[in-house]
């Protein structure tokens, strides 16, 4: 075990960790924003409304994230029309390709978590809201969604952590995220154990912070709710 190599790699790994956090945070927020309407459409009664989200969730949960990233990064760029379109300045960048793939992926999982939570909102509460004359949107805004978010919270924290670890795949499309930096340093030093260990510690640290954050949120919403 070469401790010097581990120690010397910390500043560069920290820089990679920042990119990792950035990727997870941005795609997490975008994914959540996308997941809410998806989940609502998914539980809607009309077939035309729920068929699309169902297919979307099925595809993105049913294929590996690595393949999704490769399709966005290497796949899209093979088409002349994409390269000439207004989207190219965005799709050209590995950074945005990663964000797009991660967002679409996490939106599918989160939508499914939310769908379960919406359906788990006790019938009685919805009935009560109806009884005091709340309209459909007010019911959704004041009763169903707040209740569903609370139910979904533990499962959602799990999804965020899974996405943190999935973000390591950004290194396969030239990004120097935590894993990307580790791999580049390994290419110079041939010390995979030291560097992967150091990178692993960074991931653990980030996971710890995420868990702590969710614990605080959970405490808060339960304090208000119950």
């Amino acid at each position, binding site marked *: 075990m070469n401790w010097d190599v581990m120690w010397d790699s910390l500043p560069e790994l920290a820089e990679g960790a920042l990119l990792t956090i950035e990727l997870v945070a941005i795609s997490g927020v975008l994914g959540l924003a996308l997941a809410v309407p998806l989940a609502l459409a998914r539980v809607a009664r009309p077939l035309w409304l729920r068929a699309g989200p169902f297919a979307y969730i099925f595809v993105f949960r049913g294929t590996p994230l690595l393949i999704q990233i490769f399709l966005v990064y*290497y796949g899209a*760029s*093979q088409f002349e029309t994409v*390269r000439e379109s207004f989207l190219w300045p965005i799709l*050209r960048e*590995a950074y945005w390709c990663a964000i797009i793939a991660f967002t679409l992926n996490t939106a599918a999982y989160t939508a499914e978590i939310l769908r379960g939570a919406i359906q788990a909102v006790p019938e009685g509460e919805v009935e009560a809201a109806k009884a005091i004359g709340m309209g459909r949107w007010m019911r959704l805004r004041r009763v169903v969604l707040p209740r569903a978010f609370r139910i979904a919270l533990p499962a959602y924290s799990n999804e965020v952590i899974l996405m943190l670890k999935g973000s390591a795949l950004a290194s*396969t499309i*030239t990004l120097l995220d935590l894993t990307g930096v580790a*791999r*580049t340093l*390994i*290419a*110079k030093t*041939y010390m*995979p154990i030291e560097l992967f260990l150091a990178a692993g510690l960074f991931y653990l640290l980030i996971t710890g912070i995420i868990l702590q954050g969710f614990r605080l949120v959970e405490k808060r919403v339960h304090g208000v709710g119950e």
Partner: protein
Amino acid sequence: MKTAMKMMFAGAVAALTISGPAAAEDTLRIGTEGAYPPFNQIGPDGELEGFDIDIANALCEEMDRNCEFVTQDWDGIIPGLLADKYDAIIASMSITPERDKAVDFTKRYYSNKLRFAAKKSSDIKPTKKSLEGKTIGAQRATISAQWLEENMGDIVEIKRYDTQENAFLELDSGRIDAVLADMLVAYEWLDSDAGSDYEFKGKAVYSGDKIAIAVKEGNNELRKEFNKAIKAIRKDGTYQEINEKYFPFDIY
């Protein structure tokens, strides 16, 4: 059901005990990448093929050893050797001072140069002035990537790819302005349909690249055995025969 499982388990244990240690002693395990045409790649039939593979097979025959190939992603190929996943690396590996510290090299089995390739319409030249501010692709953990870092690190953006093929693919998409690669690998790609719009730019920026077989540090016996075999296949014409299959000029 239960007996069937028991029998299967017993069979598996027997197979492990019989073939395990014995095979590890007799068979020479050779690590290669399998994604570096025309030197080592997976062919349409799913089998490894290429110059490295042919040379490895010729050497094994010369040494009278039974050889088995293990494919391993490039950036883990030296760690794999150090972790005893195979006994030698025959994967177009250049001798560099850094690698020489981690492993031992045989004498060379071919030579190479580093050269830039870019679109035919591009007027890029391999000079600092021309490359300033450009984005250059190379395979991660290769001497091309290292050369870029050491010589152009402050003026170009370097993009590192997991395989050489992905770097060429990116030239096609226009995300990078040029690729720095082993000349012989680029030669094969430029010669193919995919590379028909591209060409070498300028002269080689680095020559004297020696490609050799890597063995674990201190494994002198195997290193010497390989050296002897390389000499032998050079002498009896086997090497030249393989060379001709891939390149119309001598690459030794």
